[in-house]
């Protein structure tokens, strides 16, 4: 469950966005899109691990890919690592997206916002392999931080929106969905909470899976850092790290 994985490549693919490929035996344990790894970036500092979603799993090559935004201390340090360096990886952790919710010939809508886009890549791959038709909607702040559009396009119709209109449609992912009247049997989404909330509200009667983010301590379910509330209860809760990060819409309070 824990391994010093070797960096195969670590390159910037959009402004401040990095694509990191890791090799190690842990890859053979990785199966489910939406699961994450908990990464210790520095030897002593920063102290805590960083949760990062699996973006691509390649069992043949024994490699997995992660896409992250270099922002704070940990991800900035990570972005400075070179091929051949190792990083301490714990995982895979959590419960990912249910691919079995759909059968061949059905339609999936995948909606990602910003740094919530990466886990949808492995998801799209697995769904397409299963014969599911996928449509992808990606939302970004601005043109400079758009990534993986072409890669997603190889799986199905792919729409991009930017908040400032510098690329694709101007507006939010929900605007794209409305504008193109996109329909689906199952919707899968990962991104900022307001986006997830908007999607849950937009499709209250449909099958919607949402991947949540929360600040974590342990990442394994022991510290109660990452809980979210369950509707209609004062004490019931779910842990994002071990019950999630993917929940069915309605399962937890957003």
């Amino acid at each position, binding site marked *: 469950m824990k391994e010093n994985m070797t960096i195969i490549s670590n390159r910037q693919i959009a402004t401040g966005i990095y694509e990191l490929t890791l090799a190690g035996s842990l890859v053979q344990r990785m199966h489910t899109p939406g699961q994450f790894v908990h990464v*210790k970036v520095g030897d*002593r500092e920063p*102290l805590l691990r960083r949760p990062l979603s699996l973006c691509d799993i390649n069992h043949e090559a024994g490699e997995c890919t992660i896409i992250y935004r270099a922002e704070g201390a940990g991800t900035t340090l990570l972005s400075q690592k070179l091929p051949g360096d190792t990083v301490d990886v*714990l995982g895979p952790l959590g419960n990912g997206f249910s691919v079995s919710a759909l059968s061949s010939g059905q339609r999936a809508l995948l909606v990602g916002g910003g740094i919530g886009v990466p886990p949808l890549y492995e998801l799209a791959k697995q769904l397409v392999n299963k014969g599911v038709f996928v449509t992808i909607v990606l939302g970004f702040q601005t043109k400079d931080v758009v990534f993986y559009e072409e890669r997603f396009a190889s799986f199905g119709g792919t729409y991009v929106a930017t908040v400032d209109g510098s690329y694709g449609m101007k507006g939010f992912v929900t605007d794209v969905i409305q504008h193109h009247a996109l329909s689906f049997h199952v919707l899968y989404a990962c991104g900022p909470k307001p986006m997830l909330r908007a999607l849950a509200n937009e499709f209250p009667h449909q099958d919607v899976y949402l991947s949540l983010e929360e600040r974590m301590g*342990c990442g394994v379910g022991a*510290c*109660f850092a*990452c*809980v979210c509330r369950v509707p209609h209860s004062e*004490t019931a809760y779910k842990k994002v790290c071990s019950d999630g990060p993917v929940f069915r819409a309605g399962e937890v309070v957003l």
Partner: protein
Amino acid sequence: MNRLAVELPGLSLKNPIMPASGCFGFGREYAKFYDLSVLGAMMIKATTLDARFGNPTPRVAETPSGMLNAIGLQNPGVDYVLAEELPWLAQYDVPIIANIAGSTVEEYVEVAKRISKAPNVHALELNISCPNVKKGGIAFGTVPEIAAELTRAVKEESAVPVYVKLSPNVTNIVAMAKAVEQAGADGLTMINTLVGMRIDVKTAKPILANGTGGLSGPAIKPIAIRMIYEVSQAVSLPIIGMGGIQSAEDVIEFFYAGASAVAIGTANFIDPYVCPHIIHDLPPLLDELGIQHISECTGRSWNNGQTVYCGT
């Protein structure tokens, strides 16, 4: 002879390493990483009378060599712990130290009474850092008289020895220790977290939803060492030390300061295998230091090598 075995009130430990309360849940998660029976003991998450949800999120924030937490005593309540968690833990050969918390003396006493009867609960750990709602929210652990009163009341009803967990957020830690010693505590555990805060430079708001939180991790180690050094010389209670331990060397430093066993908190989050690793690293380190039995280390920084507590 098991050179790591330690005898403490209520506790026959095969080694002096145990996970600290709140950093290991009720053991289920880490049982996926290793056999919990390797542990000397286990301090389970603070248990209150009724289930509590705790604070809003974010509940943790990172600091230089440390972290802040404001979990807010989330736990499923004593009856659930008795019905579900403790029986599950009984499959492991590991004595449980039940950390208990409350808002009133009565709540502590009730939890103590019930939980101390569980067969695998060998000791209680009184988390006195909680606010006393009947005394205007002042923490039990910051006023010697209040801490003593609480200790006395719990001690009367507990079926097992009672360890009091000292808060470091006080002017005079020795006065606190003496007060609970006189009130009948069987041992001390120290230190709990220091109250701290971080503010997000982008939003100008505290990172924790609760505002302040408890600081743990390596950053607080020198404070823990100092307090254990002072307290161990002033009282005759055994001390389970904690605060920033990450390695076997750290464990020895705590023993030298005056601890007779140690607990590992935050380090579990960084390396889920940290407890078994430390247990594994201790014997060779003792060899290197020319020490037969770990108990010889207790208080060595001030007692010139006399053995204080010995577990043979």
